[in-house]
């Protein structure tokens, strides 16, 4: 187990390094950042000074090592636009995105698992087929489209929920979060649902496949022979078995959830790091883009590790034998 964990960490470090190289050469070397740093009518001297200040006059490999060295110390440069350290900026916007993604993940389980289990239970009836066709629509609806529709229905027409923005926040351990304030939660519901829909379809399909597979197992028949009710069979015997793959997949999807938050946050004007990223792309604020990428890579790596550990906890067979496959 420990060996496995260490190997996983080593892999992660490799991925992080590879990403650094790609990000640096990809983002830093395309175009000339100086153009947006100084006014068009600057004198050549001014340009040169700025180049020197940011180290752009150095040869590429020197620039690269400076970048890596700074990155390892947690310094990814200063935002051209905000003037703040890019990492600080990202950290400031990150909690809003993370809580949105977390709530979205929760919604997708809440919606997907019961639907999937039911679809698996009724797999050759019309109910099961209808759910599966519905899940294809879930896959088909673009994120921003869903958000738009939800705003139109629940905010504009019905006026049940606020349309855009973040609402109240509560400070928890020095981090501003909406999820613990009633008003804030209202603002979160629509964007979180938007984010959840695609994953809910995924969960529905996974849960259906798992349920179908579990229902023909002997242990389900044995549970029936014990006189256990169908409800308990579905929601204890089957669910416990299918939750392992679902949690694994969803955990890995948390990363893509954070990525897709870019779209959702734009639709709902949600002040998270996804919106920050889009704004930075539109204003060519490179350090922030780089910082976002590197932070996302870090988050991905952490998520992958955590998923592995959670998986181990959920599956008693893996936990006790100590092996993992």
């Amino acid at each position, binding site marked *: 187990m420990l060996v496995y964990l260490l190997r996983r960490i080593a892999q992660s470090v490799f991925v992080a390094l590879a990403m650094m190289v790609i990000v640096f050469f990809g983002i830093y070397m395309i175009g000339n950042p100086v153009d947006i740093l100084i006014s068009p009518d600057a004198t050549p001297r001014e340009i040169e000074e700025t180049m020197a200040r940011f180290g752009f006059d150095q040869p590429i490999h020197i620039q690269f090592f400076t970048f890596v060295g700074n990155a390892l110390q947690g310094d990814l440069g200063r935002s051209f636009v905000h003037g703040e350290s890019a990492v600080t900026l990202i950290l400031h916007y990150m909690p809003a995105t993370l809580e949105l993604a977390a709530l979205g993940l929760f919604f997708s389980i809440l919606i997907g698992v019961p639907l999937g289990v039911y679809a698996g239970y009724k797999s050759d009836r019309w109910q099961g087929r209808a759910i599966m066709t519905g899940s294809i629509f879930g896959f088909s609806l673009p994120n921003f489209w869903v958000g738009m529709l939800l705003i139109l229905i629940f905010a504009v027409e019905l006026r049940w929920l606020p349309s855009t923005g973040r609402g109240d926040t509560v400070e928890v351990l020095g981090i501003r979060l909406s999820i613990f304030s009633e008003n804030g939660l209202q603002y979160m519901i629509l964007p979180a649902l938007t984010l959840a829909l695609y994953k809910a379809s995924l969960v529905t399909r996974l849960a259906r496949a798992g349920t179908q597979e579990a229902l023909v*197992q002997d*242990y389900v028949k044995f549970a*029936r*022979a*014990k*006189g256990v009710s169908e409800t308990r069979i579905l929601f204890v015997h089957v669910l*416990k078995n299918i939750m392992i793959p679902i949690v694994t997949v969803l955990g890995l999807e948390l990363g893509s959830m954070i990525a897709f938050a870019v779209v959702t946050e734009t639709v709902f004007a949600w002040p998270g790091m996804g919106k920050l990223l889009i704004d930075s792309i539109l204003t060519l604020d490179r350090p922030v883009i780089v910082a976002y990428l590197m932070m996302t890579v870090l988050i991905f790596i952490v998520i992958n590790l955590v998923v592995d550990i959670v998986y181990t906890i959920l599956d008693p067979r893996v936990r006790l034998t100590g092996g993992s496959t």
Partner: protein
Amino acid sequence: MTVLQVEGLQTHFFTDAGVVKAVDGVDFSLDEGEVLGLVGESGSGKSVTGFSILRLVDPPGRVVGGHIMFRGQDLAQLPESEMRRLRGNRIAMIFQDPMMTLNPVLRIDTQMIEAVRAHERVSAKAARDRAISALAKVGIPSPAERLGAYPHQFSGGMRQRVAIAIALLNGPDLIVADEPTTALDVTIQSQILAEVQDLARDTGTALIWITHDLAVVAGLADRVAVMYAGRIVETGPTDAVLAGPDHPYSVGLLGSIPGHGQRGQRLAQIPGMAPNMADLPPGCAFAPRCFRADARCRAEAPEITVRGSGGRLRCHHPMSAGEVAT
């Protein structure tokens, strides 16, 4: 007193390839404390008979005919909700493969306590106590501690004991045991057999013991029923059937047990292949493989005849009637 009386039971599978008549007119009855050995080669419909009694036949299978009278109620007609109340409570079942019958991700105590609480409103504590005593009864050491374990922490033999303990939890009137020892090695098999026999005797529980091993039946069952192609072809007191089988198929089955016939002789085999259940011959299903079969056997299925020993038989040319004149 009769616990179970099965009459003309028919269970068919409606597959794409046609109707498989897995059980097609099975009759038998069972008294309190009686052990019935149900034998027959693979695919003869033993398990389906067992599952039919509990109404647990998987689709596309369905009980399509007959009566399953259990303590005066016809299980074939019972609504599903009442059937659920009987399962695991008055009628319990033990499956063939102990590795598959317990849910791998639920602890033993969860799986035992739910079996009690599915039928009785008792506290978790009381259910737990009952689980501990059931585990002790089937010979699991330090049961209180073992309750917290997961199935994979038990060996195959131990798991089957747990499954048996679960079957015993609510003191059922009838246990259907579907080859419960086939997957186990011989020493454990005989231990479990002895234990089950004692339990049945002590509690008056009737037992249907499904097996294809006649040696097991010899030591355990009061009566034996031999199944072939979805029908019981011969039934009677164990000693009588084993000593003088009347159906040529029973003869073949007995002959294929090593050690039962004369030593040194070649192991007798029933010639031919097990029949295709989706396409049975018109007459006696065993006729194509039977050394005594004639034109009548191939044309007309034999009816049940009652034998002197209290047995019943489906055969035009029983062995005790002597060689058939040609």
